């Protein structure tokens, strides 16, 4: 298993645990939380857990375009990991506190940055995987 895949999967497991913890905290009847945790929970599960597992495993298992492109691919995949996880963490910190203030608060700027990082990660992941989704004969003819 590739090192970046291990990071994706372990990060995914941390998000899964965090999501369940959040759901547990949100369900406590004696804690009257004034912030909305449900959107954070859903994104921890769907992006943090499921999407990251898909990304990690596809980067590992999908046929490589060319062996000599190893370096470029590994830079792209590490960038996806870094951008996505930084974006997600910033999002989870800021999302529950957004929408309550007027003007530009710190939470709003963090949200803006997190949007940019998550979008960049999505685009780079597609750039990495798209050329690797191709028929076997086409792949062989390229090598």
């Amino acid at each position, binding site marked *: 298993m590739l090192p970046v895949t291990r990071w994706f999967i372990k990060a995914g497991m941390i998000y899964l645990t965090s999501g369940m913890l959040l759901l547990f905290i949100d369900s406590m009847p004696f804690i009257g939380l004034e912030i909305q945790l449900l959107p954070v929970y859903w994104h921890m599960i769907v992006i943090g857990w*499921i999407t990251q597992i*898909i990304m990690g495993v596809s980067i590992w298992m999908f046929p490589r375009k060319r062996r000599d492109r190893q370096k470029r691919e590994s830079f792209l995949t590490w960038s996806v990991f870094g951008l996505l996880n930084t974006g997600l963490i910033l999002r989870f910190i800021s999302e529950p506190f957004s*929408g309550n203030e007027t003007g530009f608060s710190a939470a*709003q700027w963090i*949200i803006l940055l997190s949007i940019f990082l998550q*979008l960049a990660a*999505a*685009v780079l992941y597609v750039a990495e995987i*798209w050329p690797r989704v191709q*028929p076997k004969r086409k792949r062989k003819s390229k090598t």
Partner: protein
Amino acid sequence: MPSVSIWMIRSSLVWFLLTFLTGSLLLLNKGFEISPALWALMPVHYEMALLGWILQFVLGTAYWMFPRHLEGPKRGNRKSAILMVITLNAGIVFSAFAMNQEWVLFAGRFFLLSGVILFVRLMWGRVVSYRDL
């Protein structure tokens, strides 16, 4: 990789980008309150995420990787597989963009069900092990 899987995985990547784009708009709207009308994108966002991106990527990869038949077409009837891709994606489009029109949503759900039934029919016999365990 078979062409059916290529179509499914590439479509799922397109849905993935659309999911992130709509999600970004929603998050932007949450932070900066651009327009209440943007909240109408919420069902579009999660239908695309769960069905277009996750479901289709997983089904496309399974169609490629699961054990192949030893006799006849390796991955089952090709026409059924093509129909599966078409119905699944039609189902996602109709379901995601139904916008509270119940007949459009009904058509979407019908196509989705048809696509999933076709997938199960194609894959049922491929859930096997050819080794003596």
